[in-house]
């Protein structure tokens, strides 16, 4: 990417001062998440959540979804914090906050599709990392949730250019980042990175956002980037993609990301990928339901 393209991206990202209807607690929360767990005070999190009534209500709804593993919806934020644990609650809160970032205008990438993919990828990242004893599951969830925020930037800052890329991807049935590259000369990885830096996200999350389509290029946190890369691919072949048919064969185990992840986590070898794929299908319905009820969207129109 040339420096002039980079400058254009930076300028346009600066101009989108506020994401659409993003809740005030969002950025403070992200900063809080950057701290290590011990430093985060439980009261602080409960206070942040309760700060915004709508957010608090949504949090309780999300926490009650089977995806977060509670049999009964929690009655209070404090109750949720106690039974789910602080870190799980933070990821739930983050999910809600991002869900609020809803556009007034139509996006080139249908927001419902985008959120299903992001939430789906977050869930797959967590389930996948749960198979690897040494992985940080909540971190994996967060990385999955945020990996494609560059698409948000594209919809807001480059609506015309990105609409063309989207159209090309749908027509030629090629991966979206390839269509971005050939029509715009840059991808959501670059725009996402600029936003992530502006938001001062943690380094490993920035690495995921910038390199999830080219794991080898990442200087940092390669195993996490690899995990997101693989989960993203898996989502896109199981009905949680970008809303169109991607005409290609995906060989996850031969993907360089698999080897990178395996190097760090030997227990990857024992993962039954087929069964994992079937189990992921079981959660697709949940994800659709969660996105439409919590984020107030109409049920799916597009498949894949």
């Amino acid at each position, binding site marked *: 990417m040339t420096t002039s393209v980079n400058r254009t991206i930076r300028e346009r990202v600066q101009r989108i001062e506020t994401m659409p209807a993003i809740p005030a607690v969002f950025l403070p929360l992200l900063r809080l998440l950057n701290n290590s767990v011990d430093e985060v005070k439980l009261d602080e999190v409960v206070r942040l959540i309760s700060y915004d009534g709508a957010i608090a209500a949504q949090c309780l709804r999300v926490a009650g979804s089977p995806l977060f593993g509670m049999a009964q919806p929690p009655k209070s934020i404090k109750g949720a914090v106690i039974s789910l644990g602080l870190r799980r609650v933070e990821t739930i809160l983050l999910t809600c906050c991002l869900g609020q970032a809803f556009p007034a205008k139509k996006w080139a990438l249908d927001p419902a599709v985008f959120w299903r993919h992001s939430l789906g990828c977050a869930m797959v990242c967590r389930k996948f990392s749960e198979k690897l004893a040494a992985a940080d599951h909540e971190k994996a969830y967060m990385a999955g949730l945020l990996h494609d925020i560059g698409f948000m930037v594209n919809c807001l800052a480059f609506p015309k250019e990105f609409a063309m890329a989207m159209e090309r991807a749908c027509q030629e*049935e090629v991966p979206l980042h390839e269509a971005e590259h050939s029509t715009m000369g840059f991808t959501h990885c670059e725009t996402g990175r600029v936003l992530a830096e502006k938001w001062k996200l943690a380094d490993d999350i920035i690495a995921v956002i910038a390199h999830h389509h080219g794991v080898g290029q990442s200087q940092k946190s390669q195993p996490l980037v690899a995990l997101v890369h693989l989960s993203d691919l898996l989502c896109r072949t199981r009905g949680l993609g970008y809303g169109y048919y991607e005409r290609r*064969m995906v*060989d996850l185990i031969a993907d360089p990301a698999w080897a990178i992840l395996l190097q760090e986590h030997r227990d990857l070898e024992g993962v*039954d990928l*087929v*069964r994992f*794929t079937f189990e992921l299908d079981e959660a697709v*319905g949940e994800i659709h339901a969660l996105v439409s009820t919590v984020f107030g969207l109409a049920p799916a129109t597009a498949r*894949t």
Partner: protein
Amino acid sequence: MTIVPQPPVAQPAPNKSAETVDPVYRQIRDLVYKVSGIYKAEEKLYLLADGCARRMKQTDARTPREYWDRLTAAPSRDAELRELLNEITIGETCLFRSQPQLDALRKVILPEIVTEKVKQVTKRLRIWSAGCSTGEESYTLAMNMLEESERLLKGWTVEILATDLNDRSVETAKAGIYGDYALRNTSDLYKRKYFSTVDEKRLQVRPEVKKLIAFSRLNLQDDSKMLFMKGMDLIFCCNVLIYFDGASKSKVINHFFSDLNFGGYFFLGTSESLMKLNDQFHLVHFPGTIAYWKPSLSSGKL
């Protein structure tokens, strides 16, 4: 399977939610997966439960727990597992059963094979439907290939080999006569184009579709015959290996591997897994479906 599939007796109740299912069924699900590679997803557990319920009647098991004992304790174990597998796979088959498989075939695999073989003099595509039962899958493949005959496959010869152990199934398959239930996924377009009417209830596959297929009896465990099935581009073997024990399964899979051309694909049923029985095949994903790939020589992945 000797009879033409009929609708399952008990119709699925769509509102039965996962929570109402006895946890024993999850244990049975895991057992079935372990021995057969068939995975019944959470939302399809009621189908497994229905299958078990019918078997429980037959075996006088009063509770799912008791039935679990029948499934796990010698001497009834092996026979009962077989019965249960029959129960949960019967009546599943129909024409156009898996659209994602057909999409992968026409959108990704065919263009790939056509490009790979472009230099060859004879443009020939060979497909094997192994354990074809009453022919639904074989005809579905044939019709889809005919759809491509004016485009991707212009100038190509397509041969479909359809084999099954069971003579009666093979005979039924040859006749190519199907009722509403088998045709429930078949669009009107295909019905008009590739079928003729037999009577009010049944349609028959037209001769131009049949022409593509050679039906015959074949036991997949017959090693001498399996050695001669060379030069395949695609093998479909859906819900057949589920009855085989580990050793025979991996023997058959090794045959499939050597019977396939480089760059060829092997498909199982949509909820079926090869598990870790073969490490030469690459497990690959297409939208909505998985397959096993014998890497092409040009891919450098052998």
